């Protein structure tokens, strides 16, 4: 289907089902139960899952396939956001031209940075991209204030021209980004029993874009172009002496991943029309590296998983404070309760980074292939048990293991 083989079609369908039913799947607990704080099915967070998923999918095309570790991809995300907000200010609140411009601008920006940075590889490449991203960040903060509005961040205002939209309908309130007449913040709340499911326009726009982005990434992974990129990672010397010029391949991968980042930035601005320099900071670049590695670099679904995982921790774990802990351990005797709360305290709330850091270390040490490898191992255990039962131990363990699975 769609030029994919059976396995990839299956993967795409799984992602499609997950994305379409996310408001239900991520909302497993009734809204008045004690567990409701673990629900992730509200539009704001789901949009973040999806947008960072797109960002990580794109990053994976560069890092997962060619092995070039870029440490400055947040710059493209930031540039995309600025481009989108400017489009909202000048042209129209329709998100399509805004997103189109963010992709184009991020692509041009990536071509410039990539052209220079890709002259080096390994750690030098990482440092060059980091330097460019930090330069962009600092410029956005200071010199480029007329474009970026510096510290305050770029925002909509009532006197923006918005050539296509004309005068705002209701004076005194800022317009919302729209698509085909729907506002991104429109949400339909469905109450079913104790559950409240929120279906928002913005989320579904993001989800559809994610599916397109994911589909495109599968096509790239399975194409001869993708094979060349994996060859770059595997042995650049051999590739060179096989008549292939690695530079344009890596540059193309860099630009494609930059455009994905721009797309993510544009979507982010479409959901919430403001853009700040913080989005370009190096910690944001580091985050996408973490997402990709945590999920499984070079795998198709890994980056999406990693993005969801990290964003879930950031938003859910960080909300667990001492009061909530005391509620949890309320059944314990007082002394033990205090000890338990004191023990757990550093790992939740503001300490969520600690939990994430420990998990990241565990994954990297025990599952170098990321969460995807974990999944494969579990699936492998089941498969082995099954074949052992069939009395067929020899299933050719040395045969094909698709490296880009």
């Amino acid at each position, binding site marked *: 289907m769609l030029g994919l083989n059976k396995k990839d079609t299956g993967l795409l369908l799984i992602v499609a089902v997950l994305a379409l039913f996310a408001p239900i799947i991520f909302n497993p607990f009734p809204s008045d139960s004690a567990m409701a704080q673990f629900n992730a099915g509200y539009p704001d967070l789901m949009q973040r899952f999806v947008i960072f998923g797109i960002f990580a999918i794109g990053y994976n095309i560069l890092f997962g396939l060619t092995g070039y570790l870029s440490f400055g991809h947040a710059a493209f995300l930031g540039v995309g956001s600025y481009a989108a907000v400017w489009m909202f200010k000048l042209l129209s609140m329709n998100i399509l031209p805004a997103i189109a411009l963010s992709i184009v601008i991020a692509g041009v920006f990536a071509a410039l940075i990539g052209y220079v940075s890709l002259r080096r590889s390994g750690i030098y490449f990482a440092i060059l991209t980091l330097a460019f991203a930090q330069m962009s960040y600092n410029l956005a903060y200071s010199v480029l204030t007329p474009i970026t509005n510096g510290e305050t961040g770029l925002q909509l205002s009532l006197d923006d021209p918005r050539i296509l939209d004309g005068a705002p309908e209701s004076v005194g309130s800022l317009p919302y980004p729209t698509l085909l007449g729907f506002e991104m913040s429109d949400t339909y709340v469905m109450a079913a029993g104790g559950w409240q499911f929120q279906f928002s326009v913005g989320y579904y726009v993001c989800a559809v874009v994610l599916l397109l982005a994911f589909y495109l990434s599968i096509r790239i992974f399975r194409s001869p172009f*993708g094979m*060349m990129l994996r060859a770059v990672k595997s042995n650049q010397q*051999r590739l060179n002496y096989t*008549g292939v*010029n690695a530079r344009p391949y890596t540059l193309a991968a860099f630009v494609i991943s930059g455009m994905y980042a721009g797309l993510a930035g544009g979507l982010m601005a479409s959901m919430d029309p403001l853009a700040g320099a913080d989005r370009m900071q190096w910690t944001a670049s580091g985050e996408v590296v973490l997402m990709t590695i945590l999920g499984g670099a070079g795998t198709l679904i890994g980056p999406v998983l990693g993005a969801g995982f990290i964003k879930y921790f950031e938003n859910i774990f960080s909300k667990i404070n001492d009061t909530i802990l005391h509620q949890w351990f309320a059944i314990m005797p007082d002394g033990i309760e205090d000890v338990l709360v004191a023990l757990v305290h550093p790992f939740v709330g503001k300490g969520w980074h600690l939990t994430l850091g420990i998990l990241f270390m565990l994954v990297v040490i025990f599952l170098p292939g990321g969460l995807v490898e974990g999944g494969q191992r579990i699936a492998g255990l089941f498969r082995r048990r099954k074949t052992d039962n069939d009395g067929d131990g020899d299933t050719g363990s040395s045969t094909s293991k698709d490296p880009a699975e």
Partner: protein
Amino acid sequence: MGILEVKGVNKRFGGLQALGNINLDIAENSVHAIIGPNGAGKSTLLNCLVGKLIPDTGSVLFDGQSVLGRKPYEINQMGISRVFQTPEIFGDLTVLENMMIPCFAKRDGSFRMHAFEHSENEAEIIEHAEATLENVTMADKRHMHSASLSRGDKRRLEIAMCLAQDPKLLLLDEPTAGMARHDTNNTIDLLKRIRDELSITIVIIEHDMHVVFSLAERITVLAQGSPLVEDTPDNIKGHPKVREAYLGEAA
């Protein structure tokens, strides 16, 4: 005039004269061996032929065109394939994918943005890759991860990757270095078959005399960066200068 002409090539590294006035004329479809003791400049010479190093003076003409100043991938596209001393293959890829890459490079040139075709639909490429694998008797291993191949099979795969490009000139840098006797003999047999069945010019750099004398039609002996003698294997065997270079004056 041969397919590869090396004229007056000099290369200096600081105070060391690595190559001194090398002249070579390699006839089309011949097997030419370059031998010499350690430090004779064999690998330096080879690196000058493939674009890794640029000689200080002199010219290198392949098929009438200069290769000097061209990038390794450009020289490969001219028709020169190279086998490394330690097998250089794409370890993360399967054997078949390893074979497909040179086929793509041959068909598409040094860069093509073919990001939307499916690799599995490239029937011609796969067919050619599999036929070449068959030719080196590795077809049964085509779905293996190439990093898990034995040393001998890696070498065989590397040679097959070069053959898949149908090169005019095949350069081999100590193709049997570090191999067990059994693998060495297999490699010799393979190279003999290539020599006899395909019309490819082969230049081989080798330490192992057994390999050299079973394959080569002409031999050039290098010593301290200069060509000592060039002759047929039979004449080289008893040549006093060669003995001297290898074993010292007393022998």
